[in-house]
Structure formats: C-alpha cells, structure tokens
C-alpha cells in the first residue's frame, strides 16, 4: 500500500472544485462572523445576553440542522442542495447588511446558519465519497484527500477575518456584501461545473435512514469521540483565555496562540497525515483495531 501511496494521481476536477469550494465557504463566512457580535452589540444595540442568544441560535440552525441538510442531499442530490444553500447564504448576508431591526437581524442570522446546513453536509459527504473512490482507483489514502480539504477550510478561516477586517474599515455592510459576493462566485462555479447526477451517488427515496442510524453503535461511538475532540477544541475559547490572562495579565497573547494553531494546520497537516498513514501500514496499527 505504501508504494501505491507514493504514486501521485491528480485529483479529479470534481474533487478540486469541492476543495476550492470549502476554501471559498470559509473565506466568505469568516469575513463576517468574527465581527457579528460587535455589530449586534454596538450598531444594533442588543444586550449582551441577546447577542449570546443570537449567536447560539446561529450555531444551532447551522450545526443542529446538518443532519437535515445531509438527508436532503441523499434525497435530491448534491447539486440542488448546494445551489439552494448558496442562494440562501447570499440572501442572508444581503439581508444582514441592511437589517437594523432586531427581528430582521435574527432572521438574517438564522438564514445564514440554515444555508450552511444545506451546502456543507452535501459538499462534505461528496468529498468523502470521492476520496474513497480516489483511494479505490489507486490514487492513495483517502485520508490525504480529506486532510487537503481540512487545510483548504483552515486557510479560508484564516484569510476570511483578514479580508473582513479590511472591509470593516469601510463598514459592516460592505463586509456582508463581500461575503455574499464570495457565495455568488461559489454559486456560479457549481451551477456551471457540478453535474446534476454524480456517477455512483444514487438518490435514495425511502425513509427510515434515521432509525438505522440511531442503532448504529460504531457510528455513534465515532460521534462521541469526535464530540470529545470538538469539546476540547472549544476550550480555546472557554478555559484557555482564563489561563492566558492568569499567566500574562491580559488576553492579548490569545490572538498569537490562535494564529500559531492555524499556521500549524496549514503547514503541518499534510506531512502529519502522511506520517500517520505510513505508520499504519509499516509499523502496525496506530488506530485501535486497525488490522
């Protein structure tokens, strides 16, 4: 298998489109998101608890509804779901840029969240499926394709706030419209390049997928392990600020630590994945039970 991994097979155009999409998603999203809390508090005049509630609702309408968006992608195919998600995201950013009533801002934020619940699981699942096909065609380990996907996302979430901070010098509306503009590009790219029927991805009409899912113990165990990792990751925002403030007297070094983390992923993700992959074939299992 190691010899196979050394052969460099170029990624398919579809995989490249999806990986670039992930980059664009994060640039557009993170051009606006980091500045949302301040906009809600200062320009809209929301109380602190309300800002927290709105941000929480955004997370819920996004993360919580991924399962719905994923099921829709299985039912109707990747293309319509991604296109609909992009349209909603463009509408949401446009609305947010012009909204000044609280109800309108909440509506726009929910729309922005729900849009991601449509396009993200569709794109993520198709990347995973394409990565498996690439592996089976002898291209190399699927994990490396997914590592590249992760790096693209990380670069986007690093570049996005820089772009947003530049545009915020004009005003928040311009940052929102730039975010919408990025999604117009994604929409155009997918309308042009994403096929209606992707070979090997059938549309499944029957219901009942959820019932099998909640009984799928290995999958639920994977969810728990992934949840444990995400919970640990969130300590960057919960436990770490307090520790940094204790040691340094202010939270200023936090920004440097976040930048260090991003930089590490961008520079070291692919070598780490390659190292981990070679470990599993040469030096025995590095995952429990890997035979």
């Amino acid at each position, binding site marked *: 298998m190691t010899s196979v991994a050394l052969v460099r097979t170029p990624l398919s155009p579809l995989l490249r489109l999806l990986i670039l999409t992930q980059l664009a998603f994060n640039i557009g999203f993170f051009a606006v998101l980091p500045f949302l809390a301040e906009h809600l508090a200062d320009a809209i005049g929301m109380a602190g608890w309300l800002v927290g509630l709105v941000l929480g609702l955004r997370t819920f309408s996004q993360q919580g509804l991924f399962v719905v968006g994923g099921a829709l992608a299985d039912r109707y195919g990747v293309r319509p779901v991604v296109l609909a998600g992009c349209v909603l995201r463009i509408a949401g950013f446009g609305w947010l840029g012009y909204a000044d009533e609280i109800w309108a801002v909440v509506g726009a934020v929910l729309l922005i969240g729900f849009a991601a619940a449509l396009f993200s699981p569709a794109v993520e699942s198709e990347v995973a499926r394409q990565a498996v096909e690439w592996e089976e065609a002898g291209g190399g380990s699927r994990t490396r394709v997914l590592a590249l996907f992760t790096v693209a996302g990380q670069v986007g979430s690093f570049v996005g706030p820089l772009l947003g901070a530049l545009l915020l010098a004009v005003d928040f509306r311009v940052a929102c419209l730039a975010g919408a503009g990025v999604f117009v590009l994604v929409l155009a790219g997918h309308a042009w390049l994403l096929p209606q029927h992707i070979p090997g991805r059938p549309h499944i009409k029957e219901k009942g997928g959820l019932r099998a899912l909640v009984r799928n113990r290995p999958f639920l165990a994977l969810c728990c392990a992934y949840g444990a990792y995400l919970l*640990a990751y969130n300590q960057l925002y919960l436990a770490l600020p307090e520790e940094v403030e204790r040691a340094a007297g202010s939270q200023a070094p936090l920004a440097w630590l976040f930048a260090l983390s991003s930089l590490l992923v961008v520079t070291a993700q692919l070598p780490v994945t390659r190292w981990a992959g070679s470990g599993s074939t040469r030096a025995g299992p590095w995952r429990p039970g890997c035979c």
Partner: protein
Amino acid sequence: MATGLLLIATGFTAVAVARPAELTGTGGLLPATGFVVLLTLGQMLIAPVARAWVPDLAEPGRLGLYTGALSSVSGLIVLLGSAGTGTLLDLGLPAAVPWLVLAAVPMAAVGSLPRRSRRPRRR
C-alpha cells in the same frame, strides 16, 4: 485517531501539572502554548480520519445523512459539555482540577472508539 485524543489529553494534563507552580510572564505562557500545539496536533490527526471513517460506517446511499449527523451529534455534545465546563470553571475548585477533568474526556473517548476502523468494501 486514538493518538490524536491522547495528545489532546496530554495537553490538558500539561496545564494542570504546571498550574500549582503559578508561573507568570513569558515562561508562564509555556503550558498554554504547549496545550495549543498538542491540541492542534490532535486536531490534525482526528479531523481527516473521522471524515474518512464515515463512508465505512454509513448505510449505502445515506452518506449525506451520516455526514450531517456526525456534525449535529458532536455539536450537541459540545453544547452540553460546554455548559458543564463553564460550571466547572465557576465552581472555585483548585485550578488544576478542571484541566484534569478536561483531560479525562478525550481519554474516555479513546476507550469508546469503534473497534474496527474499516469495513471491507465489496463492489
């Protein structure tokens, strides 16, 4: 994946161990920096592998549902866990205790990992 979770647990433990020394200044930031580096290394091992694993565990034709569910279920865990962590940090326990508890979570997750990482695919 297990290696990644162990690295993260080590990161939390490093802060917990250094905490009673009450170091401040640049040296005092070392445990926090170590934590961030170990957490990021863990992330690099876990995130792509978890995504790569889903196609082996999903029912045929339902990869979208399973990919979405991975995010939704783990998001729910983060929501509940963050509320728990917030409470833990506010309890006024000795400063190292919350970090040790946080180290225990990924350790427990290592134990719960599915045993077989890949189902043989027949086509």
